[in-house]
């Protein structure tokens, strides 16, 4: 009997619990749905912003991949290029090529007599047109004395006009092109001598004061050299430190202090590392300023803490049972780490390394301090050549007043992003490769 009342009691309680749960169920479900909705909205908003950003950059950058060229009938006149008849390469290299383009233009527009007008006629062509002629002649010396139709780059203002980025309808005083200049261009267009071509210059040359001559290649090589130095130093040092600290170092006050310091270093503003680099690498060790070597060293200091922290947490996340298994059959500490722990921690370490290197690629502040912000025309050929890097190049172009640099800034951003995506893609591939080996 007493047993039965107890049973009733407990089953009563069971019903009550059930009812209470049921009553609260609606609230719980609503909370869950709300939370899901917030998350979804956040993702959509994030994607929206990203699309807007990319859309804007691509829209601006698109036109930079094309450059306007004009076809001129150039006579490689021996009396201009080689008045002494020496026929040697050195002589031809320093000849007066601008005179050739001036002659061709004058032949095409005989009505232009005024000195000032003549000057603005010649200004339609890029200052790089003369170099282009020199290149063409060097490639084919047989052209000397002949007349040839050659496509030459136009000045950035003309380029902007052809691309529709200079408004023809506003007053002459408010734009960079005179009315008669526009008339000459229209005449050239009407005769089919103006064409937009792929902007090879942008991908093959270094910086320039003239937008149509400026290219991203110098900055790209600078970034590449800098990253090579950063990667070659920070990856082995960072991963070795992480392995030592995590697997071999005794746990005592010293290692605690080191750990705290590494965590603090990860939070130091990057420009401070730039100052450090200036003081130590350039002033004390006397390394060449503006060089990828110094840039790479500075970025190594900056990325090391990030890589060490990520690598340590990757090592920590390897289940201890694997370590025990290896130690239990008599593997030494080092064999345990290198045969079993490291392969499992590799994907996590690579992720950390990617984050660190991506940060290094996008960094500009510390590099300003060590002179990588200088105007450098030559494409760097080694680690000690003066150079700049992509983000600094973007900063420099964004700061320039010429209209042609606007689209080139966006194009440079695209190149930087492409570099980043390539790098990350490579790292993701490597990670997948390691993961496949379980």
């Amino acid at each position: 009997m007493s047993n039965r009342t107890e049973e009733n009691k407990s089953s009563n309680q069971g019903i009550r619990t059930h009812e209470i749960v049921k009553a609260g169920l609606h609230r719980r479900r609503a909370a869950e749905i709300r939370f899901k909705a917030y998350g979804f909205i956040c993702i959509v908003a994030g994607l929206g912003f990203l699309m807007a950003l990319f859309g804007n950059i691509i829209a601006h950058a698109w036109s930079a991949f094309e450059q306007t060229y004009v076809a001129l009938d150039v006579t490689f006149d021996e009396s201009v290029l080689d008045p002494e008849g020496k026929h040697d390469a050195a002589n031809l290299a320093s000849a007066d090529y601008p005179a050739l383009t001036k002659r061709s233009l004058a032949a095409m527009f005989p009505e232009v007599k005024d000195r000032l007008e003549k000057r603005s006629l010649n200004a339609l062509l890029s200052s790089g047109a003369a170099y282009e002629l020199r290149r063409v002649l060097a490639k084919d010396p047989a052209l000397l004395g002949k007349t040839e139709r050659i496509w030459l780059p136009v000045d950035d203002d003309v380029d902007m006009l052809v691309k529709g980025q200079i408004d023809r309808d506003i007053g002459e005083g408010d734009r960079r092109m005179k009315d008669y200049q526009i008339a000459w261009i229209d005449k050239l267009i009407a005769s089919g001598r103006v064409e937009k071509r792929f902007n090879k210059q942008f991908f093959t040359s270094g910086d320039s004061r003239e937008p149509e001559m400026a290219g991203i290649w110098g900055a790209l090589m600078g970034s590449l050299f800098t990253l090579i130095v950063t990667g070659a130093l920070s990856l082995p040092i960072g991963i070795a430190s992480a392995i030592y600290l995590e697997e071999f170092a005794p746990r005592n006050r010293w290692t605690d202090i080191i750990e705290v310091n590494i965590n603090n270093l990860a939070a130091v503003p990057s420009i401070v590392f730039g100052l450090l680099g200036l003081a130590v690498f350039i002033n004390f060790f006397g390394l060449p300023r503006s060089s990828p070597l110094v840039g790479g060293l500075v970025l190594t200091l900056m990325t090391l803490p990030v890589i060490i922290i990520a690598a340590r947490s990757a090592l920590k996340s390897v289940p201890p049972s694997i370590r025990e298994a290896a130690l239990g059959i008599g593997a030494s500490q080092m064999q345990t780490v290198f045969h079993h722990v490291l392969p499992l921690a590799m994907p996590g370490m690579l992720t950390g390394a990617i984050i660190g290197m991506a940060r290094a690629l996008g960094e500009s502040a510390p590099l300003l301090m060590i002179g990588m912000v200088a105007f450098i025309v030559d494409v760097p050929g080694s680690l000690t050549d003066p150079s700049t890097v992509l983000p600094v190049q973007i900063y420099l172009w964004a700061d320039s007043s010429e209209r042609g640099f606007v689209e080139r800034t966006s194009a440079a951003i695209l190149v930087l992003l492409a570099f980043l995506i390539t790098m990350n893609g490579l790292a993701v591939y490597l990670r997948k490769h390691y993961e496949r080996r379980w």
Partner: protein
Amino acid sequence: MRHPENIPTSASFSRDHIQTVGNIFVKDARIECRSVDVFYGEKHAIQDVSLDVGRNEVIALIGPSGCGKSTFLRCLNRMNDTIPGCRVSGEIKLDGQDIYAEGLDVVPLRAQVGMVFQKPNPFPKSIFENVAYGPRIHGLASNKLELEEIVEKSLRRAGLWEEVKDYLRHPGTGLSGGQQQRLCIARTIAVNPEVILMDEPCSALDPIATAKIEQLMDDLREHYTIAIVTHSMQQAARVSQRTAYFHLGKLIEVGETAQIFTDPRHQLTEDYITGRFG
């Protein structure tokens, strides 16, 4: 330490009796432990334990959770070294050699004293690599053929060969729980140790897999000394010749398995075996 042998009734030692009951010594012991104390930081996990482990015997270590039996087991191949803050004092001798002697390398010790863990922990590599790893790092095989022989022999002894012989290149982690544990045993015996420590090897396994592993232990006893920690008293009774009962870090009672389970002499042992707690 030694107690009069002529005690007639069971449970003749009260719960307050703190000295080990029963004969801790065996003739020609493989492992001799004397006054072993283990500390985890401030915690005194094992208190003054002395125990011998004989040759070709299976000794079962039983006791309630947290009584220190696993800790004691891990002392025998110095796996406790990996736990920060763990300190071991006293003397543990393997074949007369103090394994806690200063400057002793743990690598040969662990090759001599293998270990199987509670949770099957195969390496995330192929079945072959799992078994071949130990012989390879110790240089037990001079060529590939020898290595393959060792692997096959070990898998056969672990009773796994027939099930996996066609899948040697498949990942060891893809096997079932019982197969994984037998793979771990194969991995341990591939190094040809003299002593095998097993820390609750069947706690994650179903009865069929458990029966296979118990059968395996019986076969292995011929060549090896086995110390097993188990929560299952039936298992201890089935596989072991001697049993040691631990309670709160102390070794309470040691004796022939049959005697411990039928005629425990310490009140705490009797409480545990009869299920009054634990």
